[in-house]
């Protein structure tokens, strides 16, 4: 499936980009594997994944052209 990823907060600095599109992504598990091998610093970062604006906690299959957001925690105030 083609997916569109948005990196929020510190994650966009770690990956060097705010948005990327990926082809042939099946599910969140595959996405995490690819992201962690492409951006090793992501492995140590806490984040949640949202698919089409819905936070997901288990492995989720992607629909074609869905939007996947990676949300890190912020602490500043």
């Amino acid at each position, binding site marked *: 499936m083609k997916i569109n990823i948005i990196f929020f907060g510190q994650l966009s600095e770690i990956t060097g980009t705010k948005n990327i599109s990926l082809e042939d992504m099946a599910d969140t598990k595959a996405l995490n594997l690819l992201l962690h091998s492409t951006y090793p610093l992501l492995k140590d970062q*806490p984040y949640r994944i949202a698919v089409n*604006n819905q936070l997901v906690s288990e492995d989720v299959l992607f629909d074609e052209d869905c939007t996947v957001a990676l*949300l890190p925690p*912020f602490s500043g*105030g």
Partner: protein
Amino acid sequence: MTDQNNDTRYRRQIILPGFGDKAQQQLLNVRVLVIGAGGLGCPALQYLVAAGVGTIGIVDDDIVSLSNLHRQVLYSVNDIGLSKVIVAEKVLKALNPETNIISYNERLTVDNALLIIKSFDIVLDGTDNFATRYLVNDACVLLGKSLVYAAISRYEGQVAVFNVKTKENERAVNYRDLFPTIPEEGIVQNCAEAGVLGVLAGIIGSMQANEAIKLISGIGKPLIGSIINYNSLTNELHEFCITPHTDAEMMMPKNEAAFKQTDYFSACVKDENNLIISKDIFEKFRLLNDVLIIDVREKNELPPITEFNHLQIPLSELQRSIPDIPADIIICICQTGKRSGVAAQLLFDTFGNTKKIHSLTGGILAWKER
């Protein structure tokens, strides 16, 4: 106080469709607690007081410093060195003398949190560290208090409303449904390290006040169980729906007794090499010869240390390179003990057991209260 004065003061919001005297009375009757009188707290407090919230509590043990003034707009240069809650109360009372303001010039801990939060209806999280955020969240869940959460970093901010039940058969979501576990220190940067755009604090803190007003008055659609992320550079706003996470309940203390036993601050810090020392041990160490104390805060952070000799090397500099340090004993200190823990670990990675390396638990703020 006269009804006529209030009618004049609040007239422009009372005449709004959907608002009316009813909403104004609801604001007057409610008790809102704002935890943190900093970047988020300042605008939130201003707009809640202005709107006519009847009782407002403010919790903060910090003092005003120059580096606050680019975003903490309740304060002025004349307030540098003064307690934030005392200054805030004065400024807010001048804005609206009818507001009942209760100031807590103390840090929120497991010992005082339940007692303080219990007497309020809604809580705003304007804190600046994860340990307190989780403490506040858990306390609100235990006490059944609505929590308006917000956080900022660099150019982005988040806002959410937690702990408000909407579905009969489903529990209300809280911060732990978003991030069940406290992140480790040093992984996520705070404002002193990462930087933050001043006006972003104003935007996000005002959004917090807006969510609170919606909850209180019943107008509009509060962000119950949702979180928004706002990017001030692009004006992109994304809203995400949060559902209950299976780990959330497991990670929280089950009851008030367990809450009081929870150490939120240590939970952030992995101390595999036993680097963290207590205040008492610090006292013993600093009287020895050949001890170097390093203040790893950013330059100009208050309060200044005048009680003992020390070197100032910000953590951000240490992270770039570790200088040659002849001393046999090195003790790192910072504001609350978090950054010094990271610094101590960095030094330990460099010097190993050739030196005694430590970090003071609770930091300067706790040490000054000894």
